[in-house]
């Protein structure tokens, strides 16, 4: 069966333990998470979780229903990839050497990345973009020697005036 990636936005009460409840549901029911991010929203009482996972329609529906059952989950929505801005942030540290420096700089420029730290032996690039762009940049950096890297996982928000809000927030 061909699985595709789904991205869902989840509005939750901003209370302690809520991340455990949401991530625990995935573990407990045997669903796999590609990535999960959580952060504040425009309303103090609520956080927003973005989860990406692979599955078919059936798995997607089961995940949505199980999330909706959690008391702290106020809103769940599958985000349409064609109508959603999806971004991820990458920080990547690569070896800095005279031989490779120029090639790295070129790649950084083409990808509209930024060098945010520079030392004689290492440099750190910052890159924002869709997952595929991040993946491509990492591939490009591999030959230069990746010392360490860190990516945030995706955040996603729908285009236009569609908003994922609970009645309480409105």
């Amino acid at each position: 069966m061909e699985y595709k990636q789904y991205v869902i936005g989840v509005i939750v009460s901003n209370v302690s333990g809520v991340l455990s409840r949401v991530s625990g549901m995935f573990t407990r029911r045997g669903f796999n998470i590609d990535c999960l991010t959580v952060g504040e929203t425009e309303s103090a009482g609520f956080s927003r979780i973005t989860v990406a996972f692979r599955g078919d329609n059936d798995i997607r529906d089961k995940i949505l229903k199980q999330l909706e059952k959690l008391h702290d989950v106020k809103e769940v929505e599958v985000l349409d990839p064609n109508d959603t801005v999806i971004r991820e942030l990458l920080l990547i540290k690569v070896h800095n050497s005279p031989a490779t420096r120029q090639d790295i700089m070129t790649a950084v420029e083409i990808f509209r990345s930024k060098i945010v730290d520079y030392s004689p032996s290492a440099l750190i690039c910052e890159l924002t973009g869709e997952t595929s762009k991040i993946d491509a940049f990492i591939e490009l950096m591999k030959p230069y020697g990746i010392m360490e890297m860190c990516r945030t996982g995706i955040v996603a928000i729908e285009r236009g005036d569609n908003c994922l809000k609970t009645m309480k927030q409105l």
Partner: protein
Amino acid sequence: MRITGAKIVVETLIEQGCETVFGFPGGQVIDLFDELYLSSDRIHHILTAHEQGAAHAADGFARATGKVGVCIATSGPGATNLVTGIATAYLDSVPVVAITGNVPCSLIGRDSFQEVDILGVTMPVTKHNFIVKDIRELADTLRSAFKIAKSGRPGPVLVDIPKDVQTAEWDFEPRPDPVRPYPLTFASENKLRRAAELINAAEKPYIYFGGGIVSGKASKELLALADKTDAPLGSSLMGLSAVPYDCPRFLGMNGKHGHYASFAALTEADLVIALGVRFSDRSAFEGDNLPRIIHIDIDNAELDKNVPADLAIEGDIKDSLYRLIPMLGEHEHPEWSARIEELRNEERRRYALADSRRGDIAGKIAPHDIIGVVSSLASEDDIIVTDVGQHQMWTAQMYPLRKPRTFLTSGGLGTMGYGMGAAIGASAATGRRAVLFTGDGSFGMSLNELATAVSQKTPLVVVIMNNGVLGMVRQLQTRFYDKHYSATTLARQTDFVKVAEAFGAKGGRAANADELRALAEEAFAYDGTFVIDCAVDCDEAVQSPLRETD
């Protein structure tokens, strides 16, 4: 009025209509127990022998009445001892509020004495759980716990209260009424119309109902639906007691340990109307040749979870049926009814064959004789409770249940040791007699609660089907493991009559049906707890509709 957190807990429990709680004290709930002591004229605390017994008692209280059952335990081991009871309630959708003490907030996270993260431990087995670190939120959190426990598909909620929150003081204003559940979910009219079309077109409909009929109080509507559609009824284990056993349309429990006719009719039906069930793996609902399925349940997450339905409807079961029935024509399916009758005859033939092969075994009582004798003496209002194992399936198959909420069993989790606590809780809730069918294995896990039954003067008849083995597992070992009876032969020398007497109960032993009758007559006339130890042969097997005979 400004009162302590401990008093807020007690006042909120009383406000929520809670008259009886089950629990066991400890260092971190001593303040709460002090308030229970001071308010003992308004709220009755029943001390159990073990916290697990308290959790099962709260569960039994809830199952017997439909009200929220409450149990209280201290931090650490007190809290973890509740877990099996909470999980039992969770799997069977029973409204329970569990209150645990915890170490003071300043000591949380430091592996303090008797500290455990009970929130983390119970997250997967509760509908929701709370820790209250701010006394200002205490009363409303408890109210939320009751609201969540009894809303929609019921379930257990745990509230963890650190000791310093119990001793702090805050203003408390009692509410005039208990919290109301969240508004019901009503099925969509369009979906009900589509259901009606499918039902009107069906030639071999079969109604498969579960515990949702009991908790949704929809027995009357269920029977009306069966009459109008001329459909047989089969239940899950949890559905038992929703309709009287002798209802002509009722074929009994289906599934792997169900009645043959109920099971076979399900496999031959062209439409299964599944009501308040979750298609557990025990329902034997698998394979490629599934009939069309209409599934109605209050929990949206159960729809299409285990078995895909052709039409899945989320909604309150009583309301759904009430609105669905007028959309249906009056149906008669004479061929289907005739086929059902054939299946019933085949079932009778199979049971008679099994009986004749079995014959009489000297010094042992047949399980159906045990149930026959006991049920002939019990009243239809007595609450029938089981533990888990062969005796549970025999009781589920054969006991003549007549009224909803008179059959309490651990269906989903299958908790051995459930019965004693549940029986005590059910009897405390209703003032009626409880009859516990148990096995020597299960009873060994909970017989400490005889102490509670005796101290509470619980009218309770305990019927032990004592075969000296862990029969359900042994039965599997007989069939599938070359009779390697690994760890299922008990070889114990426990004298259950002496055990009963040592706890202050009465007891007797029966090796044949006449002895059993004499003892049972004494037991049902006795105003207290009476244990009957019945000798059962170790090779008695639970019949399965999946094969001819064992």
